[in-house]
């Protein structure tokens, strides 16, 4: 090991400092990085470097703007920092203290938040799906939720750009929705668990396909093809995973952007004219202030409203961008229930990425008695997670738990990603307790609605039928899980009923932007990261157009 402290501990001190940032593709390597003074008024400060912030940092820098990307998390070096150990990898999650309540409190952690340069994309499961076009107008076309101010045809174009930028490996033909261009890379080989999903879907008469994933199936740049280790919902130690950390962030740095790791933004300052003037952030043991002409918040559905609410001042007593009163409201998560069973044949479900096959049948089929859609995917939880499910959801302990674990290589499962409906009572507020930075801790309140429960029951029934048809035995339902987040700063076409407009620009403060999953008016029945990336790319283009017209 090197004696260099910057190499050994990503948490000890910031790594992106002194005119350089880690080169994630080379062990011990560095990239030259431009740095700005706190008193220099930069064009853009981006708070958060995940699926929302990453593309903006890169695209804005490439357009010639001065940009600083802040992240509270560490700047990891995948080749050196990621042990193949489920517990060790929890360092990637946002596990800061929160208070959760409501009838169905959301368990915070790996499935819905990340704390690292690259955000949750460092540990996301790489599932890269497009929304069903109708979801962008779900209120007018499907009769629930709210309409987006975006046109699906324009989004189709930005999805294609996002897929290209992330070198998505997907099937030659995607069975659902309007035509889409060919994925940049071919789909990965199916593992045993994915084949069982496929056989089940075929037995039910439903279409299935290999899942489009953000891990390359052939070399790309410095990324080697995926070697199917199966440590995918953690940090990928080979860089096959196309996270923000290995795609847009290095692109941004090459184009002149600065990244500040281990830098927690606690407050956005506004000036006498009501415009944002910069951000207060905590780095290297003290609070600092960075001046900026524009502030983009990209902290996801908990940290984004938390920051906006915590930035309340005399002029904006209810928090920034909150004249509609909607900041923090309409929090959504996705139902992530599962059905598990045992096969006679060995399956080895942990080999390869966990979600190699998918059926979106119920996202595109409207003959059902509830709103919203869902998909389900093949599963491959690693042993610690599996033990947690068996102990927690199935209440096995002691010898029965041990026996259950002995069948690990024969286990199969199907897990849904389901749409939950927006509800103003599901929300993020601030408590009076403070965290390690002295910032007020968020309270996350969540309860499932009747529609959510109906959708979950429908999905559990369908997944159980699918496993039953392929001969799985000892089937049980995991009824308590949720994953991705959205809402809390919804976009819309009216300042009274939304927080930002179609360009992710806040209605109240023209130089304050919000660009992450929190702007979703509805959740959709697919993993949200590709949609966030596509919107982020669109926002970068819109900022360019607005700047050209002098409207920033």
């Amino acid at each position, binding site marked *: 090991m090197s004696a260099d402290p910057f190499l050994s501990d990503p948490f000890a001190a910031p790594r992106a400092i002194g005119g350089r940032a880690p080169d994630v593709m080379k062990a011990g390597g560095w990239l030259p990085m431009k740095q700005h003074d706190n008193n220099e008024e930069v064009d853009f400060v981006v708070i958060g470097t995940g699926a929302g912030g990453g593309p903006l940092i890169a695209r804005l820098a490439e357009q010639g703007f001065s940009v600083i990307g802040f992240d509270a998390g560490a700047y990891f070096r995948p080749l050196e920092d990621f042990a193949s150990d489920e517990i060790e990898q929890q360092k990637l999650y946002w596990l800061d203290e929160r208070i959760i309540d409501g009838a169905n409190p959301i368990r915070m952690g790996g499935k819905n938040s990340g704390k690292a340069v690259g955000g949750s994309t460092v540990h996301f499961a790489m599932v890269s799906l497009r929304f069903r076009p109708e979801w962008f107008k779900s209120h007018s076309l499907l009769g629930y939720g709210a309409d987006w101010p975006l046109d699906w045809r324009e989004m189709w174009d930005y999805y294609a750009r996002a897929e290209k930028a992330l070198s998505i490996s997907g*099937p030659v033909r995607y069975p659902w929705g309007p035509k889409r261009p060919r994925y*940049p890379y*071919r*789909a990965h080989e199916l593992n045993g668990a994915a084949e069982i999903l496929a056989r089940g879907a075929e037995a039910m008469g439903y279409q299935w396909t290999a899942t489009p994933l953000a891990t390359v199936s*052939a070399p790309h740049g410095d990324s080697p*093809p995926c*070697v199917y280790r199966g440590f995918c919902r953690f940090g990928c130690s080979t860089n096959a995973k196309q996270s923000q950390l290995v795609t847009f962030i290095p692109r941004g740095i090459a184009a002149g952007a600065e990244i500040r790791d281990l830098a927690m933004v606690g407050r956005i300052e506004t000036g006498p004219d009501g415009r944002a003037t910069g951000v207060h952030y905590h780095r290297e043991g003290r609070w600092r202030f960075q001046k900026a002409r524009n502030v983009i918040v990209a902290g996801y559905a908990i940290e984004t409203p938390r920051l906006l609410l915590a930035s309340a001042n005399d002029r904006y007593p209810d928090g920034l961008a909150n004249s509609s009163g909607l900041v923090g409201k309409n929090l959504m998560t996705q139902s992530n229930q599962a059905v598990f069973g045992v096969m006679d044949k060995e399956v080895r479900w942990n080999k390869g990425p966990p979600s190699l096959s998918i059926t979106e049948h119920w996202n595109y089929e409207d003959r059902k008695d509830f709103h919203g859609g869902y998909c389900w995917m093949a599963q491959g939880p690693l042993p610690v997670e599996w033990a947690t499910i068996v102990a927690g959801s199935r209440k096995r302990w002691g010898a029965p738990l041990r026996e259950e674990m002995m069948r690990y290589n024969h286990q199969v499962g199907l897990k849904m990603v389901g749409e939950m409906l927006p509800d103003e009572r599901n929300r993020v507020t601030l408590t009076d307790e403070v965290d390690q930075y002295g910032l007020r801790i968020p309270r996350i309140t969540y309860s499932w609605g009747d529609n959510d429960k109906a959708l979950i029951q429908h999905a559990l029934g369908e997944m159980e039928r699918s496993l039953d048809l392929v001969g799985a035995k000892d089937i049980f339902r995991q009824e308590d899980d949720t994953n991705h987040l959205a809402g809390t700063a919804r976009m819309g076409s009216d300042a009274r009923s939304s927080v930002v407009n179609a360009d992710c620009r806040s209605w109240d403060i023209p130089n304050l932007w919000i660009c992450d999953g929190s702007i979703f008016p509805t959740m959709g029945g697919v993993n949200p990261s590709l949609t966030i990336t596509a919107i982020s790319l669109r926002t970068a283009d819109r900022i360019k157009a607005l700047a050209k017209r002098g409207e920033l």
Partner: protein
Amino acid sequence: MKNDRPTGDIATALSLVTGATILGGIVLACRKPHVPVKKPQATVAAARRLNRAAGTLAASVLIDSAIEHYRGNFHNKAMITPLVTASLSLAASLHGTADSKGEAHVIRDLIYAGAGLTGLVGTGFHIFNISKKPGGLSWQNLFYSAPLGAPAAISLSGMLGFLSERLRDSHPDMPPKILGIPAGRVIGVMTSLGLMGTVAESGLLHFRGAYHNPAMYLPVTMPPVAAALLGASALGPIRRHGRLTRWWLRATALLGFAGTGFHAVGVARGMGGWRNWRQNLVDGPPIPAPPSFTGLAMAGLAALALLEDHPDD
């Protein structure tokens, strides 16, 4: 654990190969031998060149199937078959290359016929493997199940060797013919078809690799031109594009070796590069595969020489 290996299919495969080979042997042994006289040296030279081409293909198949079937853990015992037949075909080809006698050799004939059949049976196995997978004959299964086109390579080796023996067996006083057709034309057409099949195989697998390197377009652009030129010469007037065809075939032969170099670079791009050779050699691009283009180009050159030595138009 239940053993779900299709043991019945191994027996079928082996008995098919063995039965057909023995049958072929009997037929060959019963045929009326030509009087062993001194053949025109050019015909024997062409036959030896075909032996060399068959040997190149056999070597490619031997190493490639050894690596790929090792990767498949030899989970079906029949997966050893191509290793045996390719080794035999390689040995027969070495023997033939060194043999300047103007007559067919019954053992070589048997081996080549066996190799040809092995490829056919292997194709059947690979189709069976694909049909078992969910999705059936889909892109996904064509990419990742047993490769549909690969066993044909050993058939091509057997075919070239078999044609070489027919060449040696031809009537001494007349231009060499096979089934009554000038030998150069037969070999030219068959080689041209073989080239196109190999192009299809590499096209499919390079599509799986998303043509991530522009060099991956070479085997789907250069050899088709060679196949077209050779096919045109074999079916039509010979002399029109003789020079061009010869040079294009030579370039294609070189491409086969260059492909090995490209694939070695591809192996280096896997995680850990060549230091991790035990994994990347197996999972990376197949290093022994591209020289099958070399083997076929060599056969094409032999056919071209025959056509030029015995112009029939």
